[in-house]
């Protein structure tokens, strides 16, 4: 069949789109520039800053499984908590104080929990899945409570001391080292998630989210793909938890709590699920607002978060980043997706 001229042009455009889709865009430098800039501009707020970076990482891990694979979870704190306790107990109970290997162990332990629970849970969808993920986190929390002699229970695990980063960088009261540590870990894991999202595997996850019936009909091993994505998401959440334990040198069973699972979900929805940078926007807005409102009214700060969530869900279904994209398109330039 001879192709006509407009056909050839359309083909070229289509091929170009696929070839370019995964390339880094200039706008993607913005959050990283902001994070580096914040280090110099707000030297007094770096403890808060590293907590923010850790929550971005946690929300990013949820984005992979919720935003891309479409797995709705109310128990994502299970993995954050597993990582936090792994890193915390290694340091406090086993004297394993080297931070990077502690972080790897945190990721591995959370991945194991994700893999095992995911293998069972991911046969279900919708409400059943929601309840099962919730139950997983509650059960883990109770497990920690039963063995409060090891975990420290709700009073907390104390005595976490972390050796200097790379054997050289000591931790200071203002959190300089922790901030850069968290930023570096976030950057590396972000690159990994970004790579996965734009891979054929990432496309298959999107396909499962968009239409699972068609994926079955196309011969996709749906369950296996979901378990792989869930395990990776769990590992990253575990590393976020590990960073949390190491930077605070303190963990309580609250890290496994429903509050934390709900908060990360709210962050992602605020920022915009399924768009990588939604985790950045959502975590930043949530935490800054929480910080500001808590000072304004220590008892009722959640009202403000709730109101923002309602407004987002009603008027910006694709999150704040979705709004920004629309605005960007309106002013005639493409925003990152």
């Amino acid at each position, binding site marked *: *069949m001879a192709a006509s001229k407009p056909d050839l042009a359309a083909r070229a455009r289509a*091929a170009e*789109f696929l070839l370019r889709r995964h390339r880094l865009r200039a706008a993607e430098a913005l959050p990283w520039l902001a994070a580096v800039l914040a280090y110099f501009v707000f030297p007094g707020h770096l403890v808060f800053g590293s907590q923010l970076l850790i929550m971005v990482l946690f929300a990013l891990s949820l984005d992979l499984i919720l935003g891309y694979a479409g797995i709705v979870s109310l128990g994502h704190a299970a993995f954050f908590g597993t990582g936090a306790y792994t890193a915390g107990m290694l340091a406090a109970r086993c004297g394993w104080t080297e931070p990077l290997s502690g972080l790897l162990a945190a990721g591995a332990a959370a991945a194991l929990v994700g893999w095992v629970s995911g293998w069972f849970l991911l046969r279900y969808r919708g409400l059943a899945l929601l309840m099962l993920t919730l139950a997983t986190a509650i059960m883990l929390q109770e497990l920690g409570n039963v063995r409060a002699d090891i975990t420290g229970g709700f009073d907390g695990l104390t005595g976490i001391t972390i050796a200097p980063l790379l054997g050289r960088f000591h931790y200071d009261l203002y959190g300089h080292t922790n901030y850069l540590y968290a930023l570096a870990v976030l950057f590396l894991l972000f690159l990994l998630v970004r*790579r996965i999202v734009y*891979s054929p595997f990432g496309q298959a996850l999107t396909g499962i989210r968009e239409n699972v*019936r068609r994926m079955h009909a196309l011969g996709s091993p749906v369950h296996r793909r979901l378990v792989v994505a869930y395990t990776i998401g769990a590992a990253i959440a575990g590393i976020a938890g590990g960073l949390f334990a190491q930077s605070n040198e303190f963990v309580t069973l609250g890290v496994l709590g429903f509050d934390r699972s709900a908060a990360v979900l709210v962050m992602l929805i605020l920022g915009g699920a399924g768009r990588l940078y939604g985790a950045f926007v959502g975590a930043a807005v949530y935490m800054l607002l929480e910080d500001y409102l808590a000072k304004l009214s220590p008892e009722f700060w959640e009202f403000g978060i709730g109101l923002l969530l309602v407004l987002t869900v009603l008027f910006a279904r694709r999150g704040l980043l979705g709004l920004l994209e629309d605005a960007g398109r309106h002013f005639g330039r493409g925003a990152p997706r």
Partner: protein
Amino acid sequence: MTAAALETRGVSKSFGALAVARDISLTLPRGARRGLIGPNGAGKTSLVNLITGVLKPSAGRVLLDGEDITHLPQAARARRGLARTFQINQLFRGLSVLENLCLAIGERTGACNNLFRPAGSKPQVIEEALEHLAAHRLIEDALKPVRELAYGRQRLLEIAMALAQHPRVLLLDEPAAGVSSHESHFILDALERLDSDIAILIIEHDMDVIFRFAREITVLVGGAVLMEGLPEEVAKDPRVRAVYLGEEEPRGGGGG
């Protein structure tokens, strides 16, 4: 002796007291063009679901190229060359037409097992996706999200997706359903260009389509096979006429 491309042997399925399939035995040789007709509720789509593994039969067996696939999950059957289209579009509505096809190709070739390579880095996949799009005149719409496509174009994409699976057996569930008459010739053209090696079972209410396309017809009524034969035999059969009385009259040999 070569095995039939697709065979069902005494396939039955009941939901409680409702039997949607009763002892259905069908044989589709390689390159078959089989029409499946019957009134609403005859169990046509249920049969497709039983063959593809969406439903598990209560009794009977399904064979693909002589291999018993009765207990295989849906995806494993698809990977063995059994493809289908859906009566109601099942597309990735938020993705572009091009991405829809890339997924079909990626799952067939195993490319989707790769987590770290950018999806656009394989020229063969892009090339093949573009070939499928060109063959179905969808190339102008390649970068449009599916949800923005006209309904008739979406029906074409349904067929293109199934073909991108390189099927040996293709089940078409009302490919022209809901398509306006000035668009339906695109669908018919696409059907007529299908590879003659593929065994095809087509469900269709539009008798023009059936009689133009099918070389044999199976009539399903109440979950059971009423008769099977050449189009002209089916059109003449008094039982078939009785079933269709009050519905659409089969126009014997209209184009076939």
